[in-house]
């Protein structure tokens, strides 16, 4: 199964729509609640990052019987130093983003904590691709 959603840079009113849709699909697929929470928290963090930092972006989600792979691709300033961006508390967010309750430098570390695999590729002044992989368990199963 493949899903795709556009993400609008700067529009905090719509931030979370894609992650909400992904959550609905995972519930329909009977994925266990703890795994759904890890997936949608990771997804929401990545979605908010695009809204907060990029001009525009999209998420492509591929779900098979064993895993979900979410690719967040944006057009934006990129990340000059990915290692530094992964340090909890490091943030380049604007005051407007902080007023929305984000920009504390917790997003990427929290994705790393929840994901089974996280890959970040970025080019300065072009954009960033964040690939999150999480293995699935069915509700009541293995």
């Amino acid at each position, binding site marked *: 199964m493949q899903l795709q959603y556009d993400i609008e840079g700067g529009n905090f009113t719509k931030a*979370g729509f894609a992650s909400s849709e992904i959550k609905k699909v995972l519930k329909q697929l009977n994925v266990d609640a703890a795994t759904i929470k890890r997936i949608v928290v990771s997804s929401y963090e990545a979605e908010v990052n695009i809204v907060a930092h990029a001009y525009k972006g999209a998420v492509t989600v591929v779900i098979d019987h064993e895993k979900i792979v979410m690719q967040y691709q944006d057009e934006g300033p990129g990340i000059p130093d990915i290692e530094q961006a992964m340090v909890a508390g490091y943030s380049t967010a604007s005051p407007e983003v902080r007023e929305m*309750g984000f920009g504390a430098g917790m997003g990427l570390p929290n994705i790393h904590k929840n994901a089974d695999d996280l890959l970040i590729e970025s080019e300065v002044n072009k954009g960033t691709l964040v690939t999150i992989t999480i293995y699935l368990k069915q509700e009541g199963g293995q």
Partner: protein
Amino acid sequence: MQITELAKLTEAQVRCGNGLMHTEILYAAASDLMSDVLTIHHDGMVLLTGLANMQTIRTAEMSDIHCVVLLRNKKATPEMVELAAEHNIILLESPFTMFKACGVLFNAGVQSVY
């Protein structure tokens, strides 16, 4: 503790979720920073916050938080109420400060997440 009692203790008004007021909560987190809330994995948790915007409700949705209390007389927008109702999130508005709400609920036995 049931949400009914929590609402009474914090003198809160119910904006949506009237039919869910018997939901039990064990824990409370108090924060205006949604980045911090998203790192918490406890079930049966209420969120106490002074941040009244759409992302407060989205954060609750993603974190499976079934009750949000807006403090310091903050008011939910119609869009927030609509989104909370869509996801069965009980949305309350309390005139209490965060300090007072935390104190009252702690004294009544609601636990901290860590």
